[in-house]
């Protein structure tokens, strides 16, 4: 099962990186969304794969005895899910705003700060 899970993570990463390398902002955006999932799954492997033992203490006990899933990566991921959501929202709005201002979603054509034919700045003065 571990090998298959690794395959899933690997492919999520591949897809995310491929999309991130794209010129189009929207594809980058989708890449970021998948990357969020991929990273969360990768963090999840840090706690190993365990089935049917959620880290919840049964009602009549004080501590969790017996096997339980690793709660720490889960807490980290829970945070990461929310943060990546907000990051994604920010990127989306930024992309939108950039498109409206610059009339393009192609990163090569976004050239307000560095116009295309502008000479490189001098090396000294």
């Amino acid at each position, binding site marked *: 099962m571990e090998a298959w899970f690794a395959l899933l993570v*690997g492919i999520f990463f591949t897809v995310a990186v491929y999309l991130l390398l794209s010129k189009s902002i929207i594809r980058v*955006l989708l890449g970021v969304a998948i990357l969020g999932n991929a990273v969360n799954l990768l963090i999840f492997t840090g706690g190993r*794969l*365990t089935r049917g033992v959620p*880290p919840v203490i049964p009602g009549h006990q004080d*501590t969790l005895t017996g096997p339980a899933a690793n709660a720490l990566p889960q807490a980290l991921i*829970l945070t990461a899910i929310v943060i990546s959501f907000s990051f994604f929202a920010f990127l*989306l709005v930024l992309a939108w705003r950039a498109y409206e201002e610059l009339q393009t979603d192609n990163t090569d054509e976004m050239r307000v700060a560095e116009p295309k034919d502008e000479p490189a*700045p001098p090396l000294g003065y």
Partner: protein
Amino acid sequence: MLSVFILAPFAGSLLAIFFPPDQRGATAWFAGAIALLCFLVAAGLYPFVTSGGVLRYDLAWLPELGLNFTLRMDGFAWLFTVLVTAIGVLVVLYARYYMAAEDPVPRFLALFLAFMGSMLGVVLSGNLILLAVFWELTSIVSFLLIGYWHHNAHARDGARMALTMTGTGGLCMLVGLLLMGRIVGSYDLDVVLTSGDLIRNSPLYMPVLILILLGALTKSAQFPFHFWLPHAMSAPTPVSAYLHSATMVKAGVFLLARLWPVMAGTEAWFWTVGLAGLSTLLLGAYFAIFQQDLKGLLAYSTISHLGLITVLLSLGSPLAAVAAVFHIVNHATFKASLFMAAGIIDHETGTRDMRKLGGLIRYMPGTAVLAMVASAAMAGVPLLNGFISKEMFFAEAIETHQANILDTMTPYGATLAGMFAVTYSLRFIHSVFYGKAPEDLPKVPHEPPRWMRAPIEFLVLACLVVGIIPAITIGPFLHTAVVAILGASTPQYSLAVWHGWNLPLIMSFVALAGGVGLYFLMRNYLATSIEGPPIFRLLHGQRIFERVLVTLSWKWARSLEQRLGTRRLQPQMRFLVFIAIAAAALPLLLSHYEMPPLLVRSIDPAFALLWAVGIACAIGAALLAKFHRLAALVLLGGAGLTTCLTFVWLSAPDLAVTQLLVEIVTTVLILLGLRWLPKRIEDTQESELLSLQVRFRRLRDFLLAITAGGGVALIAYTMMTRPLPETIASYFLERAYKEGGGTNVVNVILVDFRGFDTLGEIGVLAIVALTVFALLLRFRPQADSLEAPEQQRVQNAFDDDHPDRNEGDSVAEYLFVPSVIMRWMFPVIGMLAAYLFLRGHDLPGGGFAAGIAMSIGFILQYMSGGTRWVEERLRIHPLRWMSIGLLVAAATGIGSWLFGYPFLTSHAQYATLPIVGKFPLASALFFDLGVFSLVLGATVLILIALAHQSIRAPRAHARAMRSGKEAS
């Protein structure tokens, strides 16, 4: 009691800001009262520090790291405290009259008090790290003070240079102090001061010495770092009088004196400190002669006198240390009064150029007399305080401390510098107060207001009294300070004007006579010459400084950018990915990594199916991302759901709940966003005739992505096949219920064990939401995305075709049934959110999940009814919710202080509500309530900001149409 010295100035500084700008007098009274209070407290503490007594004030800060807020006052610190506060009072009084009505005086005095507080902090720190902190504070505040007239380019440059120099030095010093703390094993000053042998014999002594010296020498403007001080003269004169006589530049020599017992006495110390001091002493005095600016002359003279103190400290003999401390006090008194006198001259005549000034004794005799006495003290004329410490310096210079050339040279250098000092002091007096009356001055000179002169009168009186009867006046205080540094090795010394005919006295006379002669030789040249000493004026410290800065911050940065940077995002991203792969692969290669055997064991068919779907979704999303956005989106959702189900099956119910809810919100978000993003129609030509270049680029990207993905898969697999080591997770499992009072361990970690992280995280969320809100506020989409969506157009066309229907009917009827359902869902979702929230501490759920669930409830209302419909019926104040959330979360944390526990300590118990039944009521629940409120507010704010575009757009469109019609 000691904390008064820190609290009063900083609190006063904060209060002073709020004085209205035209209240010069009131602000000055206030600031003066603060300084006076500090002075009186210091004076009252004197009995505690005599004969080696030490006052301490400890406040635990980070005791685990040996870092405490320790204030420590011994005799030496006491002397400095008195100096800093007393001259502070006088400078405030002076500034009251000096500052013009149009200057924002409250800002000045606020900065002034902050500076006084930082300086007192440096002086009183009982901990090396604390000392470095206050040291940096003095650098920063002095930057603001020097640049007080920020409309003046010179002031800005001077301030920047001072900050760069002293800041860099401070950084070096911090490293040095850290090393020293490491050698000693403690940062506590008391411990450090008793570990002299340990430090001097440590192999790290050299680095420590050099680093600390870099800090001290830059601060005290010693050669070759002296050039920032003359440029700092663009500051208002009260600033110069305070910073560059008694405080800021004295911090460097203070540190040298403070660490003198543990660092001095070695050959390395003698050479480095001595060489820097002697060259500063000579060069400073020499340069001072050739200045045309009054304050420039004083600045170089200050540099020279600081050099003198440094030389004394370098000698390593206790007597020299006594002389150094004495000269610190003397120099502060006469130099502060001289700066103030220069300020008066500038103030009343409008110029500081000595070529223009002259004959002022006729217009301001009082000031002239005061300035003459003070500069005579500077020159070392008998019966003044400068004379006595200079005699002590000469006497020490003659002594042989180490048999080397530097020691042999010291007496000659000292006499020469003494001669120069006489020359520039004489020049100061003669060219300003005597000679021809000035012509065409900007102002008609006259005496300053009575109280503006008072501080100078006081200081000059001090010079005289100390100069005539030193043993009775300054003697006991000096002794207290010296004992604090030298302890048992305090030497016998006598403070007296007359020690009989001896070599130092002869040296003094040589210096006096030579200096006077030199001045009259050079008088005519100096009266007309340009600024700066011959030959040396070609060598600009500032020029070199700027060259270095340009090289560092411009040339090297630019060439690095040219080498590694491109003007396009894609190659840059590729570079980043490549670096990431390399960084991950390198340790694998270096550690002879062996891949674990690939075990393709039997897999649960359900998982196989799930993950196959996930993989297919991800790949499909990538393929369709370019032209079929909606499809890509659906597939993206599929990938998200796969993740969610994986969490469900692999014992992470909390994650699954949150992931599911976030997935929903994300999809809504993209759908809202996509409406406004560019449409893209497939270009058939492009897909058929892909150029070789494009194919190559895609292949390269693909390979890069495969490598990255494969690498991550490898890491994941390796990690999963290793046994899980003992981690802190078991700690959480054990204590979650006993100490956190919740059975859902993940939630307990979030709101209790790692509550502070969560507080930070919701802060981030709030910032993101506000940024999104700000990006979209008052923002109207471009005209081309304004037309109604295709579906609405079709629906309207349908209405047009049917005579029995009005336009807009179909739009209104569309999704009628779902929208009714969605409206009725609102309370249900609210219920669900409450349920998730209340059970969160014990069972999967919690503030995050509940907040997002509730926001989905709101979104559904927006989707079904439209923005206007919802906002007519519901009061939605996401900003208020967010702020309440943040406040509640923070208040919960602060609440634990009331019970004497650290921030965010939680208390747990159960409570019973009717209907709901028993539920956990930990204080963490309130924290979670804050999280809930903030997450809800942030999510709703983001979504509403996007949704509002749909109302704004038509409005903007309509306006454009209207103006178009009017134009035609």
